[in-house]
């Protein structure tokens, strides 16, 4: 008993075991900030998903490369046009689709690798664990951007699938450490010991008992991971080694206007704001989820 006030925190009525996902959703819906974040992110995701229906123009079309290029925002082109006379709003909408898709897919790759690596290290323990952790330390100490730049420069002309893979391959280090910690903690937890005593197989223990307990850190890591990838992809595309033309991603729209930032300010501003809002909402949601899970435990 430390703070006296704690004694009087409401003793929540013991709920039937709630799934982590349901708990997360409930928490998100409760706070105003995360509800707002959900709405904003929802709009961006929806815009991306329905891009072909919503976008006013073909994002790659160059309707008139002389008369319609470099137009500032107007009613016809709310976000202006780019040096190729393409509609920036349409490109930002399609960019949402691509940037988020890359973010989600790369994060899925990271999650798979991270969970596998962390679970193996934690479960195996001993020398294997120590060795795997040292290797992980090394990975963690390479700045991700530099590593990606090294890779992308060595492998020129990457398809988007390869870009996703590389982004995913460089994003699992942090998560695998968390997973390992959880696995280590759970390995010695009573219910696992009980399951083992009852003769459950290793694999069964892993699937039935460990994984469900990993859901919370994974959900949090995934949310924040997508945010990170969105920023990274934008950075790489801005450097011209990310998404190739004429596909639109938020980063390469900015790149298209990068050498005339002052004159074509709308080309930096709008996609940039979309990045910021996406990342911001993902961060808000990730933190709401983390709070939810931490408070529970």
């Amino acid at each position, binding site marked *: 008993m430390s703070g006296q006030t704690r004694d009087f925190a409401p003793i929540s009525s013991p709920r039937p075991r709630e799934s982590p996902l349901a708990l997360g959703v409930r928490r998100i819906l409760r706070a105003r900030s995360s509800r707002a974040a959900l709405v904003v992110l929802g709009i961006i995701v929806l815009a991306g998903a329905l891009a072909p229906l919503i976008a006013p123009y073909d994002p790659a079309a160059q309707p008139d490369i002389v008369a319609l290029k470099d137009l500032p925002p107007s009613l016809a082109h709310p976000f202006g046009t780019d040096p190729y006379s393409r509609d920036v709003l349409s490109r930002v909408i399609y960019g949402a689709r691509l940037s988020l898709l890359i973010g989600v897919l790369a994060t899925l790759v990271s999650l798979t690798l991270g969970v596998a690596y962390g679970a193996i290290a934690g479960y195996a323990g001993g020398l294997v664990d120590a060795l795997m952790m040292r290797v992980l330390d090394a990975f963690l*100490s390479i700045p991700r951007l530099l590593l990606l730049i090294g890779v992308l420069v060595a492998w020129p002309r990457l398809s988007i699938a390869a870009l996703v893979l590389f982004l995913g391959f460089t994003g699992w280090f942090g998560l695998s450490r968390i997973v390992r910690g959880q696995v280590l903690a759970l390995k010695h937890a009573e219910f696992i010991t009980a399951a083992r005593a009852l003769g459950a197989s290793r694999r069964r223990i892993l699937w039935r008992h460990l994984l469900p307990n990993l859901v919370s850190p994974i959900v949090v890591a995934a949310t924040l991971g997508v945010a990170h990838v969105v920023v990274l992809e934008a950075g790489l595309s801005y450097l011209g080694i990310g998404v190739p033309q004429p596909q639109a991603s938020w*980063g390469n729209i900015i790149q298209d206007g990068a050498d005339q930032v002052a004159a074509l300010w709308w080309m930096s501003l709008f996609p940039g704001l979309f990045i910021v809002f996406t990342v911001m909402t993902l961060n808000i949601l990730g933190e709401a989820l983390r709070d939810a899970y931490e408070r529970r435990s």
Partner: protein
Amino acid sequence: MLRYLARRLGQAAVIVAIVATITFALIHLAPGDPFSAVMDNPNVSERVRATLRAQYGLDRPLPEQFVRYVNQLAHGEMGWSFSHDRPVQAVLATALPNTLLLMAIALVGSFGLGILIALIQVARRGSTTDHTLSAISLFFFSMPDFWLAILALLAFTYWVPLFPVGGAVDPVMHEYMGLGARIVDRLWHLALPALTLTVLAAPTVARFQRAALLDVLPADYIRTARLKGLTEREILRRHALRNALLPIISLVGLSFPALLTGAFFIEKIFAWPGMGLAIVNAIGTRDYPLVVGGVILGSIMVTLGSILADLLYVWADPRLRAN
């Protein structure tokens, strides 16, 4: 203490070795020989080619190349940068102080600013000020490094031309200035990139510090401090901050990669002649030894940064200091 340090340095060496292996693999697994661009380039002199061959043993089998490469690295040789026509370590040694200067200012600045923001927030926790500052922190936290740098450049060199467009000094006049003017010139060029990096890094600190302070506030010793009749402000500044600074110190180590990444874009956008710019240029010229050297040096910096943070932690926490 010394043994701990020795062990950490040992670990660091292992880490660097692994990084070196990864980067080596990276180059040699890449489709096409990344060195071919150099070796076949008519503009590259025979001497450089000979140096490269000797350095990397390019005509030898791969395992031997690897051994040779690691051996060179162990002796502090990172190869020959053909775009600069100098040893990689010499190029990086010239660029490093500029990057370190930028990072050091941003480190100090962002921690100062971040802690200040957190203190204001916690002193008024729950108020509109707190929420507003949280929102602003989150906004800057979510901003891509390059985007903020572009905006800063646009705003303060173009719209309101307060600062020079880039570089570390006035290229034309610097050599002809007196000492005082030179210092002013340097600071004037340093201001915007350093400020941008500070603003990029500060939100992380503020958010972390705010959480750490809020973690500390329910502690019994804070109640004790209140009991003594200290004002909330004194409590926050003296008792809470000192304790909440401990987790922040580990953030110093963790923030190195982020600072390095930030410095990378900022150096590119502000033409700041540091490591980041050297690497961007090396990417352009496919100066592989320099890119790899930069990646390895970056990892070394990150590793040393985390050791430094550990040492700081031990220094700051009396409970650890004794052991």
